[in-house]
């Protein structure tokens, strides 16, 4: 698949949140305010891109040569946890301002299924290093986009006469659901027609 194809796949066609239904929890949890959703989304993107690259490296250079691919899950989980942890420290040391807005979310997202999910997806598709990086990054952008859009809608909904039982989480699900409905427009056929 071409790089453009990968980007389109993970931002639109197979948006991790709206198609694979990964990372629904952070979308629901963080999407009350646009500000926090941007921070969390950027942190997710960062961890996803570097995490996909890191897991590719672990797979190709360590697990495969040693014949330990069956330990993939365990290794990936711990590697990404560590990645999030050390990346937060790095950000805190290098750019404290960035830490307040984005960095503090890094450890939280590092155990998120969307981050691990993209690593597995990339592993199953046998992506190379650049492809993994791009997949991770565009997957993160897709998640970020959904978070921000849902947050903006939810902020408006706060003042609407949403039925009592549906207030809060249920209406967030419905919002995301309708968004997923609209995004069905971008399907595999579309991808094939556009990038072959």
């Amino acid at each position, binding site marked *: 698949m071409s790089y453009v194809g990968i980007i389109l796949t993970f931002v639109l066609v197979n948006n991790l949140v709206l198609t694979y239904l990964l990372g629904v929890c952070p979308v629901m949890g963080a999407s009350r305010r*646009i500000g926090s959703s941007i921070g969390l989304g950027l942190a997710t993107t960062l961890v996803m891109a570097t995490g996909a690259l890191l897991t590719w490296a672990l797979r190709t250079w360590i697990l495969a040569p040693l014949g330990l691919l069956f330990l993939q899950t365990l290794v990936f989980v711990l590697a990404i946890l560590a990645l999030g942890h050390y990346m937060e420290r790095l950000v805190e040391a290098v750019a404290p301002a960035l830490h307040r807005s984005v960095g503090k979310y890094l450890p939280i997202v590092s155990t998120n299924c969307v981050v691990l999910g993209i690593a597995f997806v990339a592993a199953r598709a046998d992506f190379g290093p650049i492809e993994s990086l791009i997949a991770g990054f565009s997957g993160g952008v897709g998640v970020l986009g959904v978070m921000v859009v849902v947050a903006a809608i939810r*902020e408006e909904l706060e003042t*609407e006469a*949403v*039925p009592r039982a549906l207030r809060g989480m249920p209406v967030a699900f419905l919002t995301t659901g309708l968004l997923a409905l*609209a*995004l069905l427009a971008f*399907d595999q056929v*579309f991808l094939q027609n*556009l990038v072959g």
Partner: protein
Amino acid sequence: MWIVTLCLLPGAGWGVYLYGTRAALVLAAAILSAVVFEAAAARLASRVTLRDGSAVLCGLLIGMSLSPAVPLFIPVVASAFAMFVVKWSFGGLGGNWMNPALAGRVFVAFSWPGAMTTWPAPRTLDLVDGLAGATPLSLVKATAPERAQAPIAVLRDAGYPVSAFDTEVTSWLNVNVLGRAGVNLPTGYVDLFVGNVAGSIGEASALLLLAGTIFLFARRIITWHVPAAFFVTFAVCTRVFGGLTAGLGLFEGDVLFSVLTGGFVLASFYMATDPVTSPLTGGGMLIYGSVAGIIAFVLRAYGQFPESVALAIILVNAVVPLIDRLCRPRRFGHREVRHGS
């Protein structure tokens, strides 16, 4: 809302003329069920809302955007989805962020793609039988790009009939109006414009739909921003890139064909302009219309579904809160726009 409904009636009436009682049945099912579901939902929310006319309008729009051949449960499900899920789950009129009629239509389109793309033959103006089984747009989309033909030529080759009315009007136009500008219009467009073609119940006649909009503009129910932006970006994209998918070069797209088919007029004037789901300010509306135009083009050119305009609009509906935020007017006496809190 009642006025919008009124403005749509000529177009809907034309659909009933083309397809007979079957079309009337679909329209009735859609409107009736929309009203019933609205009443039920409003009762649950203990509000009375039927008088604002939004339920009737929503039902009418759903009915108009369906093929007359659909089984009758489809308009009912579409109305139910529109009313309960899209509208009342978000607090009723004004609370919904997605256009209920379009969302209802999209829901059934993805659920029953087969039934939604079955087209009966219309009874055309001079009783030439239309071609059953395809709308002009779906016919053109089905042809392979290697044929490298303009859409109207594809229609001719497929044996899509041209009415005598079209032939006469086109030749009159060519002699008296367009000929002086050195343009020669091929036959076929006039049929598309007046609605001598197959299609969903309400999309056939661009002429009648446009006539209705005069009243909408006169009463200031809609403003020019959304339709204009929608049209301009869609037309420009079509002109520049539209030829590519048909195997033609850049700048060889057929704008006229594109805007006269696929429910473009219905969607851009009556659906995209829905005040609830479009931005608040003129600037916002321009952004909204432009983005919708681009997405509509991309989906029409590369997507699976020829009726891309509906999808484009509900996609852009989702970013309207962001557009509103972006286009918030500068507050008087403040130096800069303050983005939220």
